[in-house]
């Protein structure tokens, strides 16, 4: 539903007085309704890319565009309702499942009673039809919690979904089911997804396209299968062979 574009984005950060580039002149366009899998060694700047889209952080130079509009000109609260984010850890609030799901809509002033059907629908969507909405979220397993976190994000009806290593805290079986869920969400709602993962296997399972970044620079950006069939760069080949940590 929405197109995302990074245009010459640079992000610097200073640690102990030294300044370095987390992202270095990144330009990439993500077509609406596609899943871009972002891979690269740890510290490459993958998560930072996501955090610039919903303005949890701001660019140092360049711009991130949502449907052609610079996100820095959009009210951050409005922006974050359109651009949902799922984190590595579920980070649920110490409330019931239902209260977690209603959190976003209630910020917009919607009445809880008007949301109950939607809560059920979302719990079905994330494959938790048997969970009582009244249960404290903390009692669920990590895998279930991550599903609730995804449902919580979907309650805002986002046009873009940012997923920051959503499977890295989960066991392989749960990871697979979450990955399938991501594909289902995309096909059902036509959401544009930016999916960060350090797992090549996970990237391949969900991605339409693949972006490799190393040290904050775009190394290659291509169709996902094309990348796995044969990367066009030396760094790409090394990354695929597991030689870049």
């Amino acid at each position: 539903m929405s197109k995302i574009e990074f245009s010459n984005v640079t992000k610097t950060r200073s640690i102990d007085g030294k300044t370095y580039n987390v992202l270095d002149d990144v330009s990439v366009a993500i077509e609406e309704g596609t899943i871009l899998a972002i891979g690269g060694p740890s510290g490459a700047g993958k998560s930072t890319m996501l955090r610039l889209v919903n303005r949890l952080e701001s660019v140092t130079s360049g711009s991130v565009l949502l449907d052609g509009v610079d996100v820095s000109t959009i009210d951050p609260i409005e922006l974050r309702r359109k651009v949902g984010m799922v984190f590595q850890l579920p980070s649920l609030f110490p409330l019931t499942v239902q209260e977690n799901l209603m959190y976003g809509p209630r910020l917009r002033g919607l009445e809880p009673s008007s949301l109950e059907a939607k809560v059920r629908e979302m719990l079905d969507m994330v494959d938790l039809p048997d969970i009582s909405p009244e249960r404290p979220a903390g009692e669920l397993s990590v895998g279930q919690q991550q599903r609730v976190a995804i449902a919580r994000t979907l309650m805002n009806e986002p046009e873009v979904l940012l997923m920051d290593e959503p499977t890295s805290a989960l066991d392989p079986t749960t990871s697979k089911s979450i990955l399938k869920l991501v594909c289902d969400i995309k096909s059902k709602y036509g959401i544009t997804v930016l999916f960060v993962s350090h797992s090549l296997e996970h990237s391949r399972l969900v991605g339409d396209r693949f972006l490799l970044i190393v040290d904050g620079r775009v190394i290659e950006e291509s169709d996902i299968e094309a990348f796995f069939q044969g990367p066009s760069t030396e760094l790409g080949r090394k990354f695929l062979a597991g030689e870049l940590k």
Partner: protein
Amino acid sequence: MEYISLSYASLGIAVLFIISAMAVSFRYRLGLERDLAVGAVRAFVQLTAIGYVLQFLFVSEKWYYVMIMLVIMLAAAIKNAVARQSIQLKGMFSTLGISIFVGSALTTSVVIGVILRVKPWYSPRYLIPLAGSILGNSMTGAALALNRLRSDITHRKPEVEAALALGATSRQAILPMVRDALRAAMLPSISSLMVVGIVHLPGMMAGQIIAGAYPVDAVRYQLMVVYMIAAAVAITSMMVVYLATNLFFTPDHMLKTEALGSDS
């Protein structure tokens, strides 16, 4: 209003208390003898000095001298509250300063102007001890509230960012941590409401009784004091958490990750 005036010679005997504490330290090799000695001397010098200052204020009865004294006390309270923060951030001084000032000034004005109706209002005999007691408690409350809030936001950062990512404003995102910080700041003054008179007789009341006041009069004073402290702490810590949002967030509702520091 007769009481036994304590001479320096008699006070000298009280030094035996310090010596007995030093003996305990020596017996158990606590290594605190030096600190005890230094502490005893410092207490003597500081209190003697303040004694002369107060004497001067009481004799001169000039509103501007009293004001100067209050400003010095306020500055000391703010400095102390800042020093108690486990991580120093830019803007903490003004956050704590404004909060302590407003919380203390409001409470002190009501006590002096409405409850006691002191005339003249700057009468140091009332203003100095009451403002001192309010400032001390505001300072502790402010320091506690800010420390707790910063540490909670740091530890619960994933939850805060999840809330922001769902479209919460920074104030909405930290509401649970704000509640905890306020509770932590207000609890000590509430517990003292609960135990006052049972566990200890507060210093101000003890002082009044020794000075010859009727105990029931002293009790009414003390009640006013514990009530005013509860209010001062509540107002001050509420202001701290309100103003502190700007320490931790940009106006665009971004968490200042670098400001929170890699926490202890």
